[in-house]
């Protein structure tokens, strides 16, 4: 049996003493993250027993995992929904709304065309349009999770976010390729 520090069952929001909500004060998250990291950093425990060092390592890992999860809008939503017992079914649910998928196809075509035409200005334009869509979807998620507790609809929004994240990656990699 590995020694587990007390309080390891806290969820990520409790760990950071933040309210369990989708809306998040990013500055506060960053501030608490730095404070927690300092408390559990393994270097501080180098003079202690192996068991204690192992615990500090576990804490450090957990704090990092929590930060990665909470600071990312998609991961935060997925995690929050899982706390409410809702799985976003990202592996199995392929039935997105038809108009949404049609738009995804159009996005991918536009990115591909701009990439081939080496049109950086067009890629930048697509990027800012995408950011606009992302902000809109995140606002809708905050409304559905925090205000309406409509977790089923929110799960659909998170699935949409996954597609938009992929578009952001595609645009970034197209820009990278043209940069070099």
């Amino acid at each position, binding site marked *: 049996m590995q020694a587990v520090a007390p309080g390891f069952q806290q969820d990520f929001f409790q760990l950071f003493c933040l309210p369990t909500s989708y809306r998040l004060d990013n500055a506060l998250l960053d501030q608490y993250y730095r404070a927690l990291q300092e408390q559990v950093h393994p270097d501080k425990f180098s003079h202690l027993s192996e068991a204690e060092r192992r615990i500090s390592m576990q804490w450090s890992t957990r704090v990092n995992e929590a930060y990665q999860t909470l600071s990312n809008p998609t991961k935060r939503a997925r995690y929050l929904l899982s706390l409410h017992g809702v799985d*976003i*079914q*990202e*592996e*199995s*649910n*392929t*039935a*997105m709304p*038809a108009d*949404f*998928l*049609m738009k*995804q*196809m159009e996005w*991918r075509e536009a990115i591909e065309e701009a990439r081939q035409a080496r049109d950086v200005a067009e890629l930048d334009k697509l990027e800012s349009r995408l950011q606009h869509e992302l902000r809109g979807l995140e606002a809708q998620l905050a409304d559905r999770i925090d205000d309406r507790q409509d977790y089923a609809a929110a799960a659909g929004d*998170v*699935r*949409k976010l*996954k*597609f938009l*994240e*992929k*578009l952001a*990656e595609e645009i970034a990699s197209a820009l990278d390729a043209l940069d070099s």
Partner: protein
Amino acid sequence: MSYSEKVLDHYEHPRNVGSLDKGDAQVGTGMVGAPACGDVMKLQIRVGKDGVIEDAKFKTYGCGSAIASSSLVTEWVKGKTVDEALQIKNSQIAEELALPPVKIHCSILAEDAIKAAVQDYKSKHGSVLEAPACRENCKG
């Protein structure tokens, strides 16, 4: 992660890339997406008067496994009736392409694309896919 030879073959020489006329009554269009990786897949079938699939086309934005899965199923569905096409299971696709566990969702996407295309075709031909009770309720 390395791709199997079959995946590479379909990826480098995809079969049946393209589009069919969405508005054609004989054409069924299936659009699906995999949230896990953001892949989108469009699969279209053209069905003859005898109910046999004459042609199939696909367009997929995704990884090699997703492209290979859709390319493979366009080959498989040709010559099958729509109901036979519905029997294609993702496990068969995954096995044929030797997909690793992390890529199983690509084969699920392809299976669901066939189902969506067949459903679209059937809806154009008034097949009873919905519960008949609804029609009763709508009378009067």
